[in-house]
């Protein structure tokens, strides 16, 4: 312990242990705070930037290809029964089923190929032909030499003994265990179609063809089902490859090996007529198969040249009849062996001679997989109902694969291009995202939404840009400073108004108001500028004594009563105009005489409401830009004898133009992303029409409507994220351009 001895010069000791400790503590505090701020700050910034990456992360799987990997491989289960005619799996992909060539149905474990049960052909006759109604209905049809057809169904029962799932396969006979007699000749080819009202079976032998219709009639009182059968002969066509009955049982398609298709009209069953013929494949090739895609709307035709073509009914304008129309095709280089359809999406897989499997989606025209799976003679492939696994049979045996194919229905071209959807007369841009049924073809074209967004933004800008820029010019350059201090906050207050209020007023007040006062609205557009000019001229004619009562820069106050009067005048005049020029009902006149569709909530309403929301943004940035033009420039111009207006247009505006440009860009960004106004002030129908009297659906409004309802991880969900990403990028880019321009401008002014 030292005590200060020199009393003349008191010296402070900064190195006492307490002070040292204190200093250390302060330094530590400083370091931790610095680190904390660095970590906190950068993580906040990262979190904000995370948005962009998260959106991308959700979108990315849309465009990734499918993958397939082999899970099991074994020799053909119950090989002694013969090769397979047909393969299938149940829902959980635990049990496989194959129909052997001798007519027995073999159920086997997918995992190891062990046979669970073999249901032998119940008849003594050999099976002469076989077909399935569809993969989803699980109806199997066996035809025999004696002209009879037996219909059975492979079925599965799920039970939970001791909490474990157990699936038991069985075969049942929905149309009875006895075979149905269809024809009196040996059947070589057959087709069946089952529906709520009954069943149709078409068969063909070596020289004859016949058709049977079984109609189900449910007695309303006893609820008994009564079956009536009707048999007809069909015109015989030689060399038949396949028969196909349409989903509504109104048409029968008969295709020959050479690919000539004849369509028979079955509506009038007593008088079946040939409706149409068409060549399904190119010359030289031969037909491999003809079958329906899920939904029984599209016919898929596979041929020996490796081509698969899609056909569906399109109404012919000339004859007003529906005809099978070629839509699109895909091609493999070698002959195809089999075609498998997905059961819940418009997807299919091809198997060719090389053992190569390709998976496609019809709507998006996208090939998601192309992989050689077999080096032996490949015979059959089949999808599981969920399309998450695939069964392949070749001469070596059976192979089981997992398929990871989440989003085949989306491709860049189907999102931004025209697509020909089933039962549409032509290629269209359509957004129609959801439906309860698996047969539904989802239509994910973002074009109508992007169009709607731009349309809404266009009309909003049409209203906002002139008002905001003119207003800003006046406020920044001509207005008296005292007035400017009051007017500026008022207009900027508009920016703080929640858009939900603007939207609600637009939808519930303005839209009906506009509909009732259409004539007034349009006359205001003309009357206001003319009226203002007229007033201005008359004002300039007034004696100077009166004019000087209102100093320069206070004109808007003079104009307010004038504008209110003019607007009132137009409103009062509106019914008279309507009665004298439009027969008393301008809305009816627009719809009937002009032939323009008129919605109450239309683009005009959106234009006004959203214009209102955008005005303050454009106004305040433009005003800043004009106000900060260096005074030296304008004073120089005025000193050289230019008028105020000449100075404005020749000096101020060119200097401020980058700032005005960035104001317009930022306003545009705001209009594009605005949700509530569009949601409430339009009908939200995704149409592509520039008509000012019709509504639209914008990307943003679509997100608000559909995101809460879409299933997490589905294609729909990811497409919506894509829409959000598009919005994000669009506004981000627009704002960045605007911001860069503005900073550039600031620098330039700085140097002046």
């Amino acid at each position, binding site marked *: 312990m030292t005590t200060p001895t020199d009393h003349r010069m008191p010296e402070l000791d900064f190195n006492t242990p307490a002070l040292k400790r204190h200093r250390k503590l302060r330094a530590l505090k400083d370091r931790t705070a610095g680190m904390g701020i660095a970590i906190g*700050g950068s993580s906040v910034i990262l979190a904000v930037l995370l948005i962009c990456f*998260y959106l991308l992360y959700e979108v990315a799987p849309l465009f990734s290809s499918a993958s397939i990997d082999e899970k099991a491989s074994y020799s053909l289960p119950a090989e002694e029964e013969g090769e397979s005619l047909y393969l299938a799996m149940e829902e959980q992909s635990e049990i496989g089923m194959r129909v052997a060539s001798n007519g027995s149905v073999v159920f086997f474990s997918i995992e190891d190929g062990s046979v669970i049960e073999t249901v032998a052909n119940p008849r003594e006759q050999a099976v002469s032909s076989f077909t399935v109604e569809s993969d989803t209905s699980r109806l199997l049809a066996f035809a025999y030499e004696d002209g009879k057809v037996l219909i059975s169904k492979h079925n599965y029962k799920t039970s939970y003994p001791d909490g474990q799932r157990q699936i038991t396969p069985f075969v049942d006979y929905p149309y009875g265990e006895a075979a149905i007699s269809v024809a009196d000749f040996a059947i070589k080819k057959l087709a069946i179609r089952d529906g709520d009202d009954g069943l149709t079976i078409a068969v063909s032998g070596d020289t004859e063809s016949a058709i049977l219709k079984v109609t189900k009639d449910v007695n309303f009182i006893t609820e008994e089902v009564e079956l009536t059968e009707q048999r007809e002969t069909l015109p015989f066509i030689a060399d038949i490859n396949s028969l196909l009955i349409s989903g509504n049982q109104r048409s029968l398609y008969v295709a020959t090996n050479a690919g000539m298709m004849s369509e028979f009209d079955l509506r009038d069953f007593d008088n079946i007529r040939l409706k149409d013929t068409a060549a399904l494949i190119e010359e030289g090739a031969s037909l491999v198969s003809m079958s329906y895609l899920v939904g029984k709307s599209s016919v898929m035709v596979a041929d020996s040249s490796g081509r698969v073509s899609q056909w569906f009914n399109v109404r012919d304008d000339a004859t007003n009849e529906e005809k099978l129309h070629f839509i699109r095709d895909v091609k493999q280089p070698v002959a195809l062996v089999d075609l498998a359809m997905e059961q819940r999406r418009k997807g299919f897989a091809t198997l060719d001679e090389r053992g190569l499997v390709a998976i496609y989606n019809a709507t998006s025209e996208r090939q998601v997989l192309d992989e050689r799976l077999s080096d032996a003679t490949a015979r059959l492939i089949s999808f599981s109902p969920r399309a998450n696994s695939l069964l392949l049979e070749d001469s070596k045996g059976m192979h089981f694969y997992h398929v990871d194919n989440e989003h085949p229905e989306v491709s860049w071209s189907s999102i931004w291009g025209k697509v020909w959807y089933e039962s549409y007369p032509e290629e269209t841009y359509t957004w129609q995202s959801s439906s309860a049924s698996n047969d539904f073809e989802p239509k994910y074209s973002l074009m109508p939404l992007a169009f709607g967004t731009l349309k809404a933004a266009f009309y909003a800008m049409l209203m906002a840009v002139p008002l905001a820029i003119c207003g800003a*010019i006046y406020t920044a350059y001509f207005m008296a400073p005292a007035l400017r201090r009051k*007017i500026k906050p008022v207009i900027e207050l508009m920016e703080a108004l929640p858009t939900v*209020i603007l939207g609600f*007023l637009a939808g519930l007040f303005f839209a009906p108001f506009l509909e009732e006062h259409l004539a007034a609205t349009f006359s205001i557009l003309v009357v206001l500028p003319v009226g203002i000019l007229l007033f201005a*001229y008359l004002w300039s004619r007034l004696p100077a004594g009166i004019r000087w009562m209102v100093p320069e820069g206070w004109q808007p106050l003079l104009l307010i009563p004038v504008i209110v009067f003019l607007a009132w005048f137009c409103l009062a005049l509106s019914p008279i105009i309507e009665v004298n020029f439009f027969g008393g009902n301008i809305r009816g006149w627009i719809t009937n005489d002009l032939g323009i569709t008129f919605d109450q909530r239309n683009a005009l309403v959106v234009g006004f409401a959203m214009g209102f929301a955008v005005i303050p943004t454009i106004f305040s940035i433009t005003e800043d830009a004009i106000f900060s033009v260096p005074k030296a420039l304008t004073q120089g111009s005025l000193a050289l004898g230019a008028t105020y207006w000449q100075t404005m247009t020749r000096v101020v505006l060119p200097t401020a133009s980058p700032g005005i440009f960035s104001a317009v860009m*930022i306003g545009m960004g705001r209009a594009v992303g605005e949700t509530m106004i569009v949601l409430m002030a339009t009908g939200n129908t995704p149409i592509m029409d520039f008509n000012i009297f019709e509504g639209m659906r914008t990307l943003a409004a679509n997100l608000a409507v559909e995101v809460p309802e879409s299933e997490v991880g589905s294609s729909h969900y990811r497409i919506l994220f894509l829409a959000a990403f598009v919005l994000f990028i669009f506004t981000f880019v627009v704002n960045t351009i605007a911001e860069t321009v503005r*900073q550039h401008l600031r620098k330039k002014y700085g140097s002046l």
Partner: protein
Amino acid sequence: MKMQKKSVSEWVKSGDPWVWLNAGAVAISVIMVVGLLLLIAVRGLGHFWPADVVQATYSLPGDKAYTIAAERVESVEVTSAQLREAGVQLPDDSEEFLQRTLLKMGNRDVYGADFGWVLDKYLSDIETPEMLFAAERHEWGNLYGYLMSVKEDGRIVSETSDVTATASALATWAMFEKSIERAATIHDDIKDIEKYDIGKINHALERIRLKQRRFELDGELTPAVEADLAAERSQYDEAYRGLQANLAALYQQINRDSFVVRVMDGTEHEIQVSKIVHAFRPNAMGVTEKMGFYFVKVWEFLTDEPREANTEGGVFPAIFGTVMMVLLMTIIVTPFGVVAAVYLREYASQGWVTRVIRIAVNNLAGVPSIVYGVFGLGFFIYFLGSGIDEAFFPEALPSPTFGTGGLMWASITLALLTVPVVIVATEEGLSRIPRNVREGSLALGATKFETLWRVVLPMASPAIMTGVILAVARAAGEVAPLMLVGVVKLAPSLPLDGNYPFIHLDQKFMHLGFHIYDVGFQSPNVEAARPLVYATALLLVMVIALLNLSAVTIRNHLREKYKSLEM
């Protein structure tokens, strides 16, 4: 003549017309803003005024005449062509223009619809009888008619046969008012029990269920534990049965009184007094009475819960939800925004990276709010939320706790949406602080952090406050993202109550902005809901205007305080 012409062209040449047109644009903008605010104010405030109920005879040509009693809502002039188009049968010689009035006729249970348009021309014998009363009901909207009698347990205690203000009519009315008051008291008691006491028991029972499930999942559900839980449960069940008995008695009491009303078509209906919220005779009220009633209604609007699918009653839960959400958001956004700005301005080395980040942050303020909503739903709710559920709330699954929209996610989403506003404002504040102030502090030996904490941040506080308040104002008005992350049209309970853990961050909530959207556009009875929507809109505008104004005031005040520093 020549002089005149020349001066016109001169006038055009001088550029004056353009200046005037620009002045016109300013005037139009101002008229639009003021007009819009006036429109909301007039319609919103008018909603609470007890309008006179008129009685009149309405006879459309070719239709039989009938008496109506209604409030006038609005009046428009229409052309007869438009009416014919709409399917109204008009005589051929009717005028070109007709005055059409929207009437609120009430009595939805009797007439089927409570609003109707009439043509003024065919209204006759218009009067405002003093004894005609209007009653707001818990359901079926307003009731208009004449009071005929009041009954207790089906026994008439007061009756009248007059529809004019005779002594017997007034006595019956007084009886009626007393009876309503009594029913209202019991109604409040019932609501208290149902909402708080039974709500508490339900909450406790649910917690016991979850506890049991938790034990089950952990494999620790021994018979002893089970017995404990059952004992606890039976205790609550006991309390519940007691309350149930109380309730039954109260229900018996509240249903004691009824009254008979004669409606305009002459039929008489017996209605229970407990169905009535207010009853009043607007035609007999003076201006002072009306004023008093007006304030009662405004108070009810601010403090009551909504009734009848949100078309009647108050918006208290929506106010509460908005305030809660905004408060939470402020708590989140302020520190993070300030820290980020301090880092960017004071700690990060200034180079092109910070410049790019600055532009990016600036531009994020311009990204559409719905995009933040989509992000919030995807990332917070589906990604983080379901992860939290699996880790911390497995007992509640499959019903989600944080894996669905709620107060917390909504606040965080909005915090993310508004954080650029705070960052930008704070940075601006920081950049305005002169260098010498900082250097002075450092020269005196303060560390960087001390300089920041004691000198820089206080000086930047006006800017920070401005940023926060602007963020709050933006968040209060934002609806689109909230629709995705947790706002509902009707929340069963407030996110803050007396049940453990008191703040329910996982709960869905109501919001003023969404209330406007929902009531205005999703409501089954738009006409009835419309005035309420205007009132709600007015409230929201006022809240936001207040926030903006306070931003300005606080900024000015703080500027004043630190003015001496800024020399």
